[in-house]
């Protein structure tokens, strides 16, 4: 029997439904007023989770992983030394939203959210009067943060709205207590690192959900032979989110602030069929010294994972190209600023694979930032050091707003005519083991002050190094640790970092 609508059409319709529920009263009537004035552009964030700039051909990576992003960059501003706030989704995304480093917003744990004083210090809330906020995230860690801001959003799409298999229930039953109920559900039914806390029903749940996942996966075997992309048992295909954007972006109230956090190339690296065999080449990454946290992963295994990661980037790049090409053809982007970035990178060196690591090497924190402004026709390259905390002040600047004094970022070069290139310190923080309301004493902090980068391991024991120093201009691969050969620079940067730590820890010291 012929179906009335197919699954994709259903998804599109279903995705529109919450728009009606969440739409601010009058927002659709105000659309014409704002769009005719054309005072502010729409802003579309495309955040590709775990996309390392060091793996993108547009930034010089030898494998041609991003031909479509390179085309996009021909009419955009390309930031070459852009840094994430941390080495995984929670701190990276929270810093992007709030314009503050993890030591301020305190979302630096796997299950973290920003602390209450920062809940409304984000670019959605600060521009809620001027823009129609729309958000979606495949990644539940980013979803936890967006859920904190949903009161200031016009349309808050849930992860399940564009997912193939959704096995979460807590937010339906306990919408007022999202984070605690969500992570409780994870412990009760799925286990968080250990076994589930439910003795009987979790078994039933796991059997039923595995069957459902197997059923869905079989439908996609032809296109995704390695399996479906998933995180926290939420399964999806990137194409559905891209299709949603193509179908709905043009009908959103203007000016909108749309934030789409899409998982590829986050692991598992399961690209679409035609990309699986990409990059079976002779490329051999530079051998690097092992790190004290190095796992036992073999070099060949790490390199094969690197190849699959690169292939996954190429797949995400192709979908990004399809999105931009279609939107441009339809004229949807005429008054839209497109911001392509990521929340953190990925590492395939020194025996380390992934981003769950105490290290902060360049592939983990050097992320892409490519911004295409309405009407921009040529490429601009910016080599100044920038951070994801610079996004919020830049957005506020675009809307003619004051930069709040709590903001730790600066307006991005290229946006502020008064901006003079001065030396500045950029930070990235890894602090999963540090208590949320305690001084920052456990973890790793990177301080980037061009051309140097200091990586400081807090609370390191005697067997481990306390800090590493690299000259990123002479040694972009971070092979030669200068902390011994250039002690004066190391000591100076370390001293600056100590002063910073003293300052940021002050509110958390017991009186």
């Amino acid at each position, binding site marked *: 029997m012929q179906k009335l609508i197919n699954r994709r059409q259903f998804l599109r319709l279903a995705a529109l439904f919450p728009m009606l529920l969440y739409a601010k009263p009058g927002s659709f009537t105000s659309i014409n007023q704002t769009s005719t004035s054309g005072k502010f552009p729409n802003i579309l964030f495309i955040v590709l989770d775990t996309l390392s700039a060091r793996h993108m051909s547009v930034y010089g990576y030898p494998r041609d992983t991003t031909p479509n992003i390179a085309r996009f960059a021909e009419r955009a501003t390309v930031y070459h030394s852009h840094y994430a706030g941390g080495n995984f989704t929670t701190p990276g995304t929270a810093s992007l939203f709030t314009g503050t480093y993890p030591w301020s917003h305190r979302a630096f744990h796997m299950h973290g959210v920003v602390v209450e004083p920062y809940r409304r210090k984000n670019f959605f809330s600060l521009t809620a009067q001027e823009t129609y906020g729309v958000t979606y995230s495949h990644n539940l860690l980013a979803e936890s943060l967006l859920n904190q801001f949903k009161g200031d959003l016009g349309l808050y799409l849930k992860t399940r709205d564009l997912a193939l298999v959704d096995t979460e229930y807590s937010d339906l039953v306990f919408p007022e*207590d999202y984070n605690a109920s969500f992570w409780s559900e994870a*412990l009760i039914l799925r286990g968080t690192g250990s*076994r589930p*806390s439910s*003795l*009987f*029903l979790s078994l039933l749940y796991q059997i039923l959900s595995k069957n459902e996942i197997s059923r869905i996966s079989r439908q996609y075997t032809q296109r995704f032979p390695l399996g479906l992309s998933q995180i926290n048992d939420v399964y999806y295909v990137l194409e559905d989110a891209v299709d949603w954007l193509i179908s709905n972006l043009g009908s959103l109230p203007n000016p909108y602030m749309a934030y789409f956090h899409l998982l590829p190339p986050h692991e598992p690296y399961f690209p679409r069929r035609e990309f699986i065999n990409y990059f079976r080449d002779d490329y051999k990454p530079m051998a690097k010294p092992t790190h004290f946290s190095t796992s036992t992963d073999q070099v060949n295994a790490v390199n094969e994972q690197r190849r699959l990661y690169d292939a996954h980037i190429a797949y995400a790049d192709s979908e990004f190209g399809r999105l931009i090409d279609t939107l441009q053809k339809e004229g949807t982007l005429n008054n839209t600023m497109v911001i392509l970035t990521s929340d953190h990178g990925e590492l395939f060196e020194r025996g380390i694979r992934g981003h769950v690591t105490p290290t902060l090497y360049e592939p983990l924190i050097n992320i892409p930032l490519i911004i295409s402004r309405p009407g921009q026709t040529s490429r601009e390259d910016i080599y100044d050091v920038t951070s994801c905390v610079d996004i919020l002040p830049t957005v506020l600047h675009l809307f003619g707003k004051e930069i709040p004094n709590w903001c730790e970022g600066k307006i991005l070069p290229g946006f502020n005519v008064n901006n003079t290139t001065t030396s500045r310190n950029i930070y990235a923080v890894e602090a999963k083991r540090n208590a949320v309301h305690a001084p920052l004493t456990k973890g790793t902090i990177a301080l980037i002050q061009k051309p140097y980068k200091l990586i400081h391991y807090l609370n390191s024991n005697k067997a481990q190094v306390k800090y590493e120093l690299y000259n990123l201009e002479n040694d972009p691969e971070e092979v030669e640790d200068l902390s011994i050969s250039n002690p004066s620079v190391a000591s100076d940067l370390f001293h600056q970092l100590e002063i910073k730590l003293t300052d940021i820890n002050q509110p958390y010291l017991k009186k």
Partner: protein
Amino acid sequence: MDISRKQALTSNDAVLILTVVILPIHIWSILHVLEEMPAWLIRLNLWDVAGLISYTQVFALVESLLLFIPPVLLGLLIRRGWLGGYFTELTISIVIVVSLWAIAVQENFGTARNFNLAQELLWGGLFLLSFAVVIFFVYRLPRYHAAVRSLVGRITPLAIFYLGIDLVCLVVLLIRNV
């Protein structure tokens, strides 16, 4: 006519069954909450930690009731003489065995998921055999009845203690969600 005297389940028996249902579910749940507690204390404030504990314990209560209600209904429907008058002892023993199997499966879930047919048949056979052992104990060892009742009776206060915790947790959930 006193109908209750003809039913297989008395209120005292129901308490004994409730005890053996509550204990494994709650002990399992609390152990895993304690396992997670250090990580929670690092990243959450105390009110959120109380929330996470409350969700897990209220879920344990719901799970206990779901397991408790079917045998109770069955006990109210069948007559005392059925099952040789050993309904309570049989139910208690089955709940204990099923709980032990559930713990075994939880501990080896990754392995169990990948069993081939022969392994499934083998473990399925052992599962059935454990019931045969239970039936043997109930029907062939009269001293087993007294031992079961005595043991479960002694640990009933612990089950009541867990129920008290559940009620406190229920109040916490209500406060968090209202």
